[in-house]
């Protein structure tokens, strides 16, 4: 199991469209993906879980990946956050 922190940088924050992007990316991997904000964690492959995660611009998000492909899964998700979900 590995984990890392990322920041939400796009102005609109993590609304429905970015949540959909996260699910699509996370679902490409076998690993279990967990996203955590201030101790509240959700399944990274669940759009409904992500929608309940309050993450406006500037929020620090912890990404946890656990499984055979955890390295590339974490890398892909980090890149998605760093691109601002392609919204900037």
């Amino acid at each position, binding site marked *: 199991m590995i984990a890392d922190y990322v920041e939400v940088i796009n102005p609109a924050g993590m*609304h*429905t*469209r970015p949540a*959909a992007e996260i*699910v*699509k990316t996370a679902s490409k991997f076998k690993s279990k993906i967990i996203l955590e904000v201030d101790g509240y964690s959700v*399944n990274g*492959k*669940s*759009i*409904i*879980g992500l*929608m*309940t995660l*309050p993450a*406006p611009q500037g929020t620090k998000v912890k990404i946890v990946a656990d499984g055979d492909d955890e390295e590339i899964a974490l890398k892909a998700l980090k890149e998605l956050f760093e691109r601002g979900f392609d919204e900037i």
Partner: protein
Amino acid sequence: MEVTKKIRRNTETILKGIPASKGYAIGNAFIIRDFTINPINSGDNISTEDELKRFLQTIEEYENELEKYTKNIGKENLLAVEILESIKLILHDPEIIESVKKIINEGKSAEYAVLKTYQKYENALLSVQNKLIRERALELSQIRNKFLELLINKKVSTSIPKDTIVVATTLSADQVIAFKEKNIAGLITEMGGITTHCSILARSFRIPMVIGVANATKMLNNGERILIDGYKGIIVANPKRKTLVEFKSKIEDESQLLRELGEVIYQPTQTRDGRRIELHANLNYRFELDDPELYYTDGIGLVRTEHLIPIYEFYNKGLTLSEFEQLQYEIYHEVALKMFPKIVTFRAFDLGGDKFPGLFALNETNPMLGFRGIRYLLANPDFFKAQLRAFLKASIEKNVQIMIPMITTVEEVLDSLKLLNECKQELKRDGFEFDHNLKFGIMIETPAAALQTGVLAKYVDFFSIGTNDLTQYTLVADRENSRVSSYFSPFHPSVLALMKYSIDRAKAHGKTVGICGELASHPAATTILIGLGFDSISVSTQNILLVKKWISEIDSNNSREILEKALTFETSDQVRDFLDIG
């Protein structure tokens, strides 16, 4: 017990709701009644295996239907495609599937399991502070209803006559798409938010829609003649002949305007070469919130609160400051909610000067150079703070920003920020919610502020240039005074140079600059404003559509060249001649 009475047939009745998609429609009511499901608990004739199979088949069936819609809509309506895509993700959400399977395995029916699971997540979404997320809960309930409908195999009637106005409690995204394919005339729902899928889709298909019409499905009768005013959020059932004639002439006016302006009004405001300009409206009075033009803006760039708020009442009725704060909050919040999710910029009271001379009776020999704007506010800190607190409380949906008028010194900005911070602390202490990142800006309407833009930029989030005051204070000319009004010219080289200097300094500090004033109400002047590099332009509602069209015809590179040329002239008349402004 049924408390809601049906409206009487053949009696004109007006119902109010929230405008969700602009436009007018005439048609006949088609009521969609909610179906109720009777969840079956574990019983002798339920097979867990069958229920699981039925659940998984329904996901597939729902998905096939979405595929079909995606194909019919075509890729160019990206918004609709993305919405359909997000519904698919919800159908396949691992948490939802797991929860449904778990309940089925406990011996419950698929319907019951789907209902319970979706309701659990709807409630989770409803408990979130953010209004945008709460609206997602409604979407989830629409997907749930549609899912149950497929599960129970109860389909929406497929034969829908021409000129139909659909009346429903709520509608799912795919229902809106299905109705669009039947060429319905308009939509009315009892619930809904302006940012929910069905509203977004209605706007993208240009189907007039009014939401939030309480008990619409119970009060209206099938087949009744209905008018929809999607600008004001009003519906009229059984219109009288006179109402109908008036309504038809409104439709005629609307279609003539739309024909003249063409496609451009549906697009975001941008120059011909694609430079995005935020187009905002100025707002003075509450009734202006009904102006249909507000739909084509990016928000309100200037709320003149000294007009919006009945200040006379405060002074004459002897309200306490906290009552006055509450009165202000209610009005500001109404404006913010009406415009949500678009941004509303409130300007603090600009009192004194030529405004409300009777109220203040300061008897200054030179009021325009006297105790006005921020000077009055800082001298009355409790009065100022009541307004700042009202702004903060109204910012709960995060679509409010504020600005301060008549700045001439850096101290005024620092003192205002100090009071704003005090207000934030007080509200926090008293348990009020507000937007902690509320943006704070100032007006540039004096040469002093324009020349110190670079310094002021350190303390503020944005600037707004007020051309009328900047012109009168630069040229020392009151445009209301006929003896000197000929001196009043926003095209005077010194005014253009000041604006250019101020904008360049602001941009160098990464701050946005808007303009509010009616300078933009001429095509050539609009070109100059684009050339100057304004990020946003705020004009009165009646000019919105024209300015939008002009901007779309301007090439931003060309406008910079025109500005450079204009800056080489020595007199306002030369600039006016060059721009061909009479």
